[in-house]
């Protein structure tokens, strides 16, 4: 059976992608930021995942409003990045794992999640910037196969934090039910607080970011009490991307240990942060499942 080694939450700010592309990680302005991913690399080298399930949001590269899924799961052998229109370098393709993707989709649909399956799928900076941070190309070829899961953060109505957390729980169950000896890391990308649109553009809420970073470890259910309008108000219109962190967290067990955590302050328009959570054993999940059921 597959094992979830843990979860990673990380921002996916395009400017970071630009810095990666330019090789700026030792520039004084960027070094503290990139250095904060060294403990992440050390942890990944320790736990050696075979697969990364990457929960992100598409910003208008693969999905358009003519066919806009709430939850889309990739089931391709290869995921290409492509021109997003505003100048970010296109990065090389990522390896998929379609058999594993189908295992996840089957399990999640059986659990009454209405998944959109994608046998061809372009991945945008929401996916690629996170991958570039976790597995920098300087360290050699990317050692993991991937399953991208895109969450709708474009078209209201967005899925609620509670629904996203439940998707995560179904995802965790699906991963652990997959009948191969795999080590899986679940990545949630996006956030934290930021807003690009409107007269409140530039909005940042450090207090709420820190609250999210605390609760995501110890009490993720507390975050599921927020509605999407609550989140927009508290973390900015685009800060709602934190719902992807909730999917990641839902896939882990009730108890996790925090391996690493860093809040960076604002990069470009967005609060940047990274966290690594190590998973408890699966038995723990099953014991907790009952309690969660009552809460949600």
């Amino acid at each position: 059976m597959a094992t979830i080694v843990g979860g990673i939450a990380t921002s996916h700010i395009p400017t970071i992608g630009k810095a990666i592309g330019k090789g700026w990680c030792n520039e004084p302005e960027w070094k503290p930021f990139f250095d904060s991913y060294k403990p992440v690399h050390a942890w990944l080298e320790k736990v050696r995942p075979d697969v990364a399930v990457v929960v992100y949001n598409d910003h208008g590269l693969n999905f358009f409003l003519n066919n806009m899924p709430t939850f889309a799961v990739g089931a391709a052998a290869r995921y290409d990045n492509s021109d997003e229109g505003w100048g970010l370098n296109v990065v090389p393709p990522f390896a998929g794992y379609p058999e594993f993707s189908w295992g996840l989709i089957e399990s999640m649909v059986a659990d009454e999640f209405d998944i959109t399956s994608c046998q061809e799928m372009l991945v945008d900076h929401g996916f690629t910037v996170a991958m570039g941070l976790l597995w920098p190309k300087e360290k050699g070829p990317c050692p993991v196969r991937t399953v991208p899961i895109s969450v709708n953060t474009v078209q209201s109505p967005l899925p609620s934090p509670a629904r996203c957390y439940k998707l995560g729980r179904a995802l965790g169950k699906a991963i652990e039910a997959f009948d191969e000896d795999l080590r899986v890391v679940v990545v949630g990308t996006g956030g934290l607080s930021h807003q690009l649109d409107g007269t409140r553009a530039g909005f940042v809420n450090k207090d709420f970011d820190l609250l999210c970073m605390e609760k995501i470890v110890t009490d993720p259910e507390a975050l599921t009490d927020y509605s999407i309008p609550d989140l927009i108000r508290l973390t900015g219109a685009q800060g709602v991307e934190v719902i992807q962190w909730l999917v990641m967290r839902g896939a882990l067990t009730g108890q996790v240990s925090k391996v690493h955590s860093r809040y960076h302050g604002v990069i470009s328009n967005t609060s940047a942060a990274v966290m690594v959570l190590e998973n408890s054993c699966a038995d723990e999940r099953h014991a907790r499942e009952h309690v969660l059921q009552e809460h949600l």
Partner: protein
Amino acid sequence: MKTSLENHKIPGTIIFDGQRAIDGYALNKMCFSFNSAENRAAFLSDPDAYCRKFNLTDKQREAVKSRDVLGLLESGGHIYYLAKWGGIIGLGVQDLGAQQTGMTVEEFKAMLARGGAH
């Protein structure tokens, strides 16, 4: 149409709900086309003709011409798609932010460096 989000109006942002999606479909479709370099070049060679090809409203074409970001959002543009248009005409997210908040770009960046708006 009464949408649940209209019951949760949030000052300073423009929720991309069903009504905005209806109003902005053509505009967003045009901006989505800017994922292609060829289409970006076609826009730049004659912006208004490109807008007409996508059947933008007069108001939207006017807002494109005057680079009025708030106007484009009000008439149904989504910021993710508008960012692609911004890229073409040299407006990054901080330029867009400065314009919307009535700051200079330097003021907007300085505000972010101080931890952003609250």
